């Protein structure tokens, strides 16, 4: 990503408490509204942020509190979102991304988080080191409504 293209950027850090899941997705949605997205696009972004943040809260810090970092960048017609933690990490990323794969079936997880992010966003990158943490980067093109409406 070329730094010159950055239009706007925000960062939030918060405790790995489940009450922050709604806070995180609403914050990103409010920030993304600057790109004038459709309701559909906002819904996709909210769901994807919720998935990534919930994963950090549940899987990265299962028995302790930790910090979840959230960064969003607005480009001309695109939003890029990064969710990272310094928790347990993922042993096998390829397997983790498969639909229905979960290591927490006992906690009623369905193993659909990564599949949903992949479906609702345009790009999804997962980086992780066991014992060090996980970083999920995802992006989505926003079709600008007001540009369409000028015709």
């Amino acid at each position: 990503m070329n730094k010159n293209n950055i239009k706007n950027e925000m960062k939030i850090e918060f405790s790995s408490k489940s009450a922050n899941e709604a806070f995180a997705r609403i914050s990103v949605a409010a920030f993304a509204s600057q790109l004038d997205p459709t309701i559909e696009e906002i819904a996709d972004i909210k769901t994807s942020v919720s998935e990534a943040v919930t994963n950090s809260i549940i899987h990265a810090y299962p028995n302790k509190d930790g910090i979840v970092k959230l960064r969003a960048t607005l480009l001309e017609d695109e939003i890029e979102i990064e969710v990272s933690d310094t928790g347990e990490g993922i042993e096998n990323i390829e397997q983790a991304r498969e639909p229905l794969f979960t290591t927490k079936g006992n906690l009623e997880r369905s193993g659909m988080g990564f599949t949903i992010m992949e479906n609702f966003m345009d790009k999804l990158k997962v980086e992780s080191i066991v014992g060090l943490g996980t970083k999920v980067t995802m992006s989505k093109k926003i079709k600008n409504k007001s540009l369409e409406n000028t015709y």
Partner: protein
Amino acid sequence: MKVNHYLEDKLLFFEITEELDHHVVERIRKRADYEIQRFMPKKVIFDFRRVGFMDSAGIGLIIGRYKTASLYGGSVELINVNEKVKKIFEMSGVLKIIPIVDDFSSEQTG
């Protein structure tokens, strides 16, 4: 979450009134199981009329309650599911065992 019992038909009705994420599911799951175990319904219906947001936690909630209801021979159905939420359920394949049905009229049954 609002809970209604329809005695005649042994129908248990949950209307979800909040955004369905991990945080909320943790709070309503026990209540739902308690009602199912107490009432032993033939059918559990989840009304999604007021669910504007759901993530994968909602899938876990529904599958979990299906498991509880099955212990007492009950089934689970969903009503008033919006397109976005429906897409998430479809991706998981869960609709094969927990169908979305057209409607449910409380007058008919209750």
